[in-house]
Structure formats: C-alpha cells, structure tokens
C-alpha cells in the first residue's frame, strides 16, 4: 500500500512539474512578439548558443561520421554492397544521429550555460532588479535566450550531419577505397526529402525542448550555490531523457 501511495505521489508530482513547464512555455510565447522586436538581443543569444557550440558540434560530427564510415563499410562488405555506404551513413546521420547527438551536446554545452546564467542572475537579485526597473525579465532575458536556442539547434544539427557525411566519406572513400562516384550517386538516389524533413522536425522539436528545460530550470533555480548546481544538473538529465523519448515518438510518427 505504502509503495502504491509513493508511486502515486511521484506520478502526480511529475505531472504537476510538466504542467508548470507548459505554463511557462505559454508565458514565453505570450512575451515573444514583443521580444522579437529586439533582434540584437536574439542574435546575441544565437551567437552564444550556436556559434560558441560550433567547435564541439563539428568535432563530434566528424568522429561520429568516421565511425559510421568504418563500421558501415565492414558490415556492407559482407554483402558485397560497399557502394551503399553513402546512403547508410547519410540516412543514419540526417534522420537520427544528427538531431539526437547534437541535442545531447547542445544540452550539455548551451543548456547548462543558460541554466547556470539565469540561476546566478536570480541568486544575485539581477532578475528582481529588472522587475524593479519595470522591465519584465521574461521578455528581456528569458525569451531571447529561449529563441536563440530554438533557432540555433536546427542549424547545429544540419552542420553536424554535413560534417558527419564528410567524415564517413573520408573513411569509406579515402581510406577503405569505396568508389567515390557510387558513394555520392547512390546517396543522392536513395535519400529523399522525407528523410531530411524528419531530421528537421526532430531538431526543431529538440531545440524547443532543450531550450525550454534550460531556461525553466535556470529561472526557477533555488537562489543558492547548491540550487544553481542542481538546476544545471537537472537541465542535462531531463533534456537527455526527453530527447531520447521524443526521438522514439517522432521516428514512429514518420514511419
């Protein structure tokens, strides 16, 4: 009985938390039209979330692509169809690894930065000070960061996939000796718009999810050193779980 009671309690708690996040999202949406007028603030945040994540995204994309090239080659060789390597690597990257790995890295690099920045602003009264200056911190601070993340994430995922395909080509064609012409032409013939759309939809949804979790955790962080630390950790953990869960749902929806 006690176990059921505890389970029920944690379930209602989780639902209440989800409801709070959704309400926060609605608040962000309501403040967005006015925040969109301040393009300078948003582009600054796209730079923070996007441009500053470029190195880690490109390096990871390269290595993930190289691994795909190597493993794909060995697997396909057994069936004598190494020429399909371009197709296999591209579909894997564009539909799955690009959006998912980028989102996980994004949560670790940009999400934690957002959460700890907002948490520290709360802890040092900067958000209250803004409210006292009759400036809505949601509109001035939170929405630009949220939108910056939402815009940066699909761009990063696209870059990840492109660099990944280059990495697969590097290993498959340059090192393992797959024919360059068939690598590219088979890929062009087999990868359709639908595959690319799936990647775009995924990365957009992951962008909203990661950015929302990060700004929510940061904005409502307990204003202490420990609280900010916990908000940062929760940003990564919650983002990762939601990314993988949503990934399954979207993949199923596209079948």
């Amino acid at each position: 009985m006690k176990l059921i009671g505890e389970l029920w309690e944690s379930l209602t708690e989780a639902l209440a938390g989800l409801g709070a996040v959704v309400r926060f999202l609605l608040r962000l949406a309501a403040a967005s039209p006015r925040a969109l007028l301040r393009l300078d603030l948003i582009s600054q945040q796209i730079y923070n979330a996007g441009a500053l994540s470029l190195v880690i995204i490109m390096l990871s994309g390269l290595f993930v692509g190289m691994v795909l090239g190597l493993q794909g080659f060995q697997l396909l060789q057994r069936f004598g169809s190494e020429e399909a390597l371009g197709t296999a690597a591209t579909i894997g990257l564009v539909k799955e690894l690009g959006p998912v790995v980028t989102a996980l890295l994004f949560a670790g690099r940009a999400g934690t930065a957002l959460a700890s920045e907002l948490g520290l602003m709360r802890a040092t009264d900067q958000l209250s000070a803004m409210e006292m200056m009759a400036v809505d911190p949601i509109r001035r601070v939170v929405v630009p960061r949220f939108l910056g993340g939402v815009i940066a994430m699909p761009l990063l995922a696209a870059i990840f996939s492109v660099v990944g395909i280059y990495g697969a080509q590097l290993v498959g064609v340059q090192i393992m000796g797959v024919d360059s012409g068939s690598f590219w032409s088979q890929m062009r013939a087999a990868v359709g718009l639908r595959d690319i759309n799936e990647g775009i939809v995924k990365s957009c949804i992951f962008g909203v999810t990661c950015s929302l979790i990060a700004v929510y955790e940061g904005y409502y962080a307990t204003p202490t050193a420990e609280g900010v630390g916990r908000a940062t950790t929760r940003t990564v953990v919650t983002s990762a779980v939601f990314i993988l869960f949503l990934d399954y749902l979207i993949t199923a929806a596209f079948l």
Partner: protein
Amino acid sequence: MSYAVNDNRPVFAGLDMDIPRGRITAVMGPSGTGKTTLLRLITGQVRADLGSVVVAGQELRRMRRADLYVLRRRMGMLFQNGALLTDLSVFENVAFPLREHSDLPERLIRQLVLTKLQAVGLRGAAELMPAELSGGMSRRVALARAIVMDPEILIYDEPFVGLDPISLGVILRLIRRLNDALGITSIVVSHDVQEISTVADVVFLLSGGKVVARGTPQELQSYPSETVRQFIGGLADGPVPFHFPAPDYFGELLAREDA
C-alpha cells in the same frame, strides 16, 4: 495591513505605517522581523493578504501587472548587493532603464548617464565591468542606476552592510544629498543604529510584525520601552531573547547517548 508567507506564520499582523513624502524614513528592527518583506510589499513584488498598501495614492493589493510596472518607473530601488547586470558595463548598467523605457537619442542618454555617474563619483569607472568593482563601488553604481529615471521614491535595502567606513560615509552623504536636492521620498531599511541616526528624519522600529516605536532618532534614544532600549542599546538579552528556544541546557549536555 497583514501578510503571511503561509497561513500559520504571519510576518505582519495589523501593521500600520505611514511614510512621509519627501523625507528620509528609516525602517529598523531585529533580523527576521520582515524588513525586506516590507520593501517587497511596498514595491508590489508580493501582495498583502489583508488591508491595503498605498503607494503614491495607488492601492497595490489588486493592481494589474501593467499598472504596477507603470508605477515602478516612479520608484528606484537599491538592492543589498547592488544587483548590477553582470554582462553589461557600468555605463550600460546605468543606461539600462533609459534604453528600455525611452527612445532618447544616444547623445542624451550619454549625458544623463554621465551626470548620474558624476553624482556618485564614478564617472571615471564608466567603462569597467561590474566584476571589476569593489562592494562600495557597485552599490554606488546601483544607486546611479536607481536615480537615472528620476524617481519620486527611492528605496534602500540594507545599504550599509559590509561597507568600509569611507564607502559608508559616501553612501550616507549621497542618501542625504539626493533627498535634499531632488526631494525624493527615501525609505532606508537597516539595522545600523548609528548610521541611521545621522540621516533619518523619521524612524520606525519593527518587532514581531508590528511597529513598536515611531519618532525622530533623538526621540527613540529615550523611548520608554524595553524592546526599543534593547535594540538601540544593542543589549544581548531582553524582550528579544538571546537564545533560540531549546530544551534544558544541562539536560541536553548530560543526556546519555542511548537515551
């Protein structure tokens, strides 16, 4: 006016204060009497449960957010640690309210910001970042930011905490000068009896969620009340006990471990 954080622990019950316009009013009291909470009530960051909070003729308790923001443009507040925006320079921090609330040309903003920085003696620090400032300097920058919109009401939350004697003297003189020169209504929350006595026109002493004394600093020196005498004289024990409620001292020290 009454206010409770939760239902069973009221911070204020039947608090009645009337803060005179154009004067420096000090709010004093032992730690934990809700001085900061009082400021949050006056600025509408939290709402009273009962009664009314009237600021500049407007009732705050049921005010809409938008109206509250309009009212707040007429108020300035100095936070305990300054609360400067750490990603902006000193100049941009002071310019922040102007940029957010007006379309003034850059030249005018520059002049306004520099005059306010000059008033707090930090015009030379305009290009520094908040992290490069000392505690006293950040508080002076925050003061310049608080007055840049020319507020009618200026609120100071513990402005003297952790300042060296020189910075403290500077802040004290600034509070007095701003009040005299601009006719600002000032509310200073503090528990520094000596410092407050030199600037305040009126002092409210709060304890246990109520006003226990009201008067000029001189009147409070000879106020016929135990609570006031304990606070002004800085006595360790009195109506506000030195000890947090605890079980019997010897009983706890000598208790056997297995008990």
